[in-house]
């Protein structure tokens, strides 16, 4: 095999070693020219699995209540790692995982949606930080990603790209999944490679409905079979990133029903049970202490008896949803085994990217977007809205977009405090990891305890493959990897710790780890609260990070962070504070709270466009890219051709009945329906029939005031003539949906108005020539600026929950 210089990517093509004369006479071909670079001998296949929004205490493999037989069989034939760490937020963990570098240093101090104006928060991968899939691809691996991506900025998820922010641009030769942070599992707006392909056709198959986790496994297996059908020896790198267990918690009812009654004891007792099992399994030390409940979470005993079934069902669904993820990963593993390649496949399976998510707030929600739109609902309101959409038995169905109560997430992070977004504590930063590699791991079923971080995964994979991190890629000098290989721990349980220090930072929550000491610096804001009162202490000129509370733990003696030693070791506190600032400077963490900068007046430029035109064949416009109709007056104008005998169907629709709008014709009448997050539904119907021929229809919304969620009056017009009117008392202030797209001429996926549910996608039977949105700026520049600020606040809130 030709030895390649792998320090410069792409690998240079082979030098022609034959001879090319004027004619074939005397010429000698060199068949190496048509080959491709191959990885070093012995480079294994790699299956990298990442579960979403899950905690240390969720899977049974680590003592949790959720049955995970496939995770356990990998652990029993491989290794459990119980001191593996992530970043406490979704995109940052993914960016660190796939680059082997600290998340801020590669532009992901926050989530993909939030592309901010500071280097550590741009949500844009620097070209001097080539990611792992690119390195593996250029070294001869077949690379593919399936499932959740969440590394593409919100406004760049359409046909205009730019595609270097999409999975293909990161080095994955094939991608099937979702670009955003969360998705319906029943009707995701899918992307395949560099195209949004929208709602899967099987969504409309009532007998065998589409389910994203099943389809992910199917597509992965299909891809593996295709690769092996072509090339029996080329190693593969599969990144299998489940949408589960992120909200909405969608799973077939029978999966949830397997847990009927198993959470009736509530979250407090569940933690105790999990903690006891963790000790029995030995995944936590025998002397570990269970940390106490923070007052932010209610005691289960204080929950009214009438509401306990509501809360218990939330966790039953989450558990069934998570078990299904284990099932589908197991199908992929079985397929690799069936190919006869399990022994040559390194499997790294991380159960959770940021701890379990507390973003369902205290109550949980029938629709996760209610929180992000600033709609507070009591648990009784949540229960009634749940009843409206089918009741507890439908909690996991497509009729809802559910998220569970925060206390269930806290219980899922047993034995630690807090969870997602809280980078200062282990609830948000420590997740289980299992490594499986038969024939190489000799201590099958063993436990490994080195302090490891998600940035160590890529260096470990490269180490095992014998591939160096490149010095240059595309001629650009590369930032060295920040992670360190933990290969030694695979075969040696007594191997020295490969990592002795690491910083953590998520939305101002900070930690500094060094030589066993952990300094925790948590902002006192509750993660799901973004009220002015909650944010005021963090305003520029007000907040002094060093003046905030700091807790000090010595983890070798205190696995769970139960004993705060700060008062006893002020010098260590100061040393770690100083070290944090050094690391923060080095890795572009600064300025702290850049994620919340819009709340403090640092706004992106005010958009100038007021007109948005779509021809009739445009579909699947991602929800972050629809016209900015929120919180202001606007009009939708559509040019139609209506055949003799009239027409029916959808002219334009965004999202679904849990938030969205639709302009359609049914029974000859132009109709506009607007769902304010499924809480309020407003409908206006024309009083006369739609005429035939060339027709222009229009919906005008006149806002009452320049305020978020403003009410207003609706007028329907046909060829300029008013034909109907109505009122909408509340409108959506931030975002209709986190995942459901806008379509011209039909309503793909779940429909906005249940009145045409039986006709979905209710394609227009005439012709939609063009749909134009005209948004009307507010009269006062200050009003326009205030609304812009409020919308940016909402976007930040959405991003933090994604």
């Amino acid at each position, binding site marked *: 095999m030709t030895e390649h210089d792998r320090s410069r990517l792409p690998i240079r093509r082979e030098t022609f070693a034959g001879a090319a004369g004027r004619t074939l006479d005397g010429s000698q071909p060199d068949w190496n020219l048509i080959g491709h670079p191959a990885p070093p001998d012995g480079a294994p296949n790699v299956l990298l699995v990442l579960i979403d929004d899950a905690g240390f205490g969720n899977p049974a493999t680590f003592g949790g209540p959720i049955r995970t037989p496939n995770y356990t069989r990998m652990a029993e034939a491989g290794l459990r790692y119980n001191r593996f760490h992530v970043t406490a937020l979704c995109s940052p963990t993914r960016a660190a995982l796939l680059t082997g570098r600290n998340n801020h240093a590669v532009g992901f101090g926050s989530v993909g949606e939030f592309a901010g104006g500071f280097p550590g928060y741009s949500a844009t991968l620097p070209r001097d930080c080539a990611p792992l899939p690119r390195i593996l691809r250029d070294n001869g691996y077949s690379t593919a990603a399936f499932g959740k991506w969440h590394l593409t900025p919100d406004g760049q998820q359409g046909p205009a790209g730019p595609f270097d922010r999409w999975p293909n641009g990161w080095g994955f030769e094939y991608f099937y999944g979702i670009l955003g942070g969360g998705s319906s599992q029943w009707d995701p707006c899918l992307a395949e490679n560099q195209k949004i392909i929208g709602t899967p056709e099987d969504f409309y198959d009532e007998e065998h409905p589409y389910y994203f986790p099943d389809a992910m496994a199917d597509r992965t297996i299909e891809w593996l079979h295709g690769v092996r059908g072509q090339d029996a020896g080329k190693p593969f790198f599969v990144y299998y990133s489940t949408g589960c267990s992120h909200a909405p918690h969608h799973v077939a009812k029978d999966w949830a029903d397997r847990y009927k009654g198993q959470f009736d004891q509530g979250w407090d007792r569940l933690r105790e049970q999990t903690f006891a099992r963790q000790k029995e399994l030995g995944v936590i030390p025998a002397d570990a202490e269970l940390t106490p409940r923070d007052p932010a979470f209610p005691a289960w005993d204080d929950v009214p008896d009438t509401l306990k079934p509501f809360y218990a069902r939330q966790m039953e669904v989450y558990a069934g949803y998570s078990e299904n993820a284990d099932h589908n990963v197991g199908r992929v593993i079985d397929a690799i085994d069936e190919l006869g390649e399990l022994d040559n496949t390194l499997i790294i399976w991380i159960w959770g990217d940021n701890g379990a998510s507390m973003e369902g707030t205290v109550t949980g929600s029938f629709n996760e977007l209610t929180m992000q739109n*600033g709609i507070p609902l009591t648990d009784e309101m949540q229960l*009634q809205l749940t009843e409206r959409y089918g009741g507890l038995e439908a909690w996991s169905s497509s009729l809802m977009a559910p998220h569970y109560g925060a206390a269930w997430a806290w219980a899922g992070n047993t034995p630690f405090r807090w969870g997602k977004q809280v980078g200062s504590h282990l609830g948000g930063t420590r997740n289980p990891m299992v490594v499986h590699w038969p024939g190489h791991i000799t201590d099958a079923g063993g436990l490994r305890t080195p302090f490891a971080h998600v940035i160590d995964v890529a260096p470990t994979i490269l180490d095992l493959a014998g591939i160096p991190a490149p010095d240059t890629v595309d001629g650009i000098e590369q930032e060295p990897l920040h992670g360190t290989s933990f290969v030694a721990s695979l075969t040696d349980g007594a191997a020295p710790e490969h990592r002795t220090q690491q910083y953590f930072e998520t939305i101002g929550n900070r930690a500094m780890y060094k030589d066993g000491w952990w300094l925790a610096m948590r902002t006192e804001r509750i993660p799901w609260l973004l009220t002015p009162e909650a944010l005021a202490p963090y305003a520029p000129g007000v907040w002094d990070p060093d003046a905030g509370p700091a807790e000090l733990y010595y983890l070798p003696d205190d696995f769970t962070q139960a004993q705060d030693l700060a008062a006893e070791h002020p010098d260590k506190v100061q040393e770690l504070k100083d070290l944090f600032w050094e690391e923060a400077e080095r890795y572009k963490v600064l300025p702290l709270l850049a994620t919340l900068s819009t709340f403090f007046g640092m706004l992106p430029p005010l958009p100038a466009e007021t007109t948005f035109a779509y021809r009739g064949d445009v579909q699947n416009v991602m929800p972050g890219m629809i016209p900015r109709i929120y919180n202001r007056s606007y009009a939708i104008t559509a040019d139609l051709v209506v055949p003799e005998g009239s027409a029916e169907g959808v002219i334009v629709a965004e999202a679904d009945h849990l938030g969205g709008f639709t302009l359609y014709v049914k029974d000859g009448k132009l109709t506009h329906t607007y769902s304010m997050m499924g809480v*309020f539904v407003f409908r206006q119907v024309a009083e006369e029939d739609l005429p035939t021929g060339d027709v222009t229809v229009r919906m005008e919304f006149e806002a009452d005031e320049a305020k978020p969620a403003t009410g207003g009056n609706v007028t329907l017009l046909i060829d300029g003539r008013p034909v109907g009117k109505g009122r909408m008392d509340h409108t959506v202030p931030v975002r209709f949906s986190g995942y459901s797209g806008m379509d011209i001429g039909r309503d793909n996926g779940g429909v906005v108005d249940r009145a045409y549910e039986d006709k979905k996608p209710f394609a227009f039977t005439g012709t939609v020539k063009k749909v134009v949105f005209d948004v009307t700026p507010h009269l006062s520049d200050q009003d326009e600026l205030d609304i812009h600020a409020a919308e940016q606040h909402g976007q930040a809130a959405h991003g933090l929950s994604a």
Partner: protein
Amino acid sequence: MPLDQETTDVLIGGYLSTDAAHEDYQAVLSCGARLWGAVVVSKDLEGNLSVEQTDHMVEEGAAGLASVGFVVGLFAPPLLAATAIGAALGAVGGKVLHRRTGSKIEESAGETIPIGGAGLIVAYKHADAETVEPAVTRAISKVVGEADGHHVEALKGALADAQKKLAEDST
């Protein structure tokens, strides 16, 4: 005691689900108190209206609740009065109080009950308040109006009082 010598109470409850409204409706019917009338009106997700009423006043030859009108104003406040994202997103006005007297219940409720929502009206003598009111456990918003006088006038007066309280709650 004749109706026109009693103080009449009218309870109005608002719901985000029809199930919850019917649960309370059944609860007041079986609470043991003598009701002058009870009406539950709901609208499903497709916008279809349904009305169920047990109007005891009809038995006495008086006009039923349906004839004195249906009142809403139940649904917005305090649903959006505060916000998790911030005051900027919470500055949402309350629902305008709609008043429909003298019209058929289907017409008035059809315009004012939101899709997926429901309303409950119960009329009873004030002396039974401690029996009736605790039976209504699931209303998102609930007001009680009261008035004295002849039975139909008392009903109208109590409804008006309830409407006024709803309006106050909405501001």
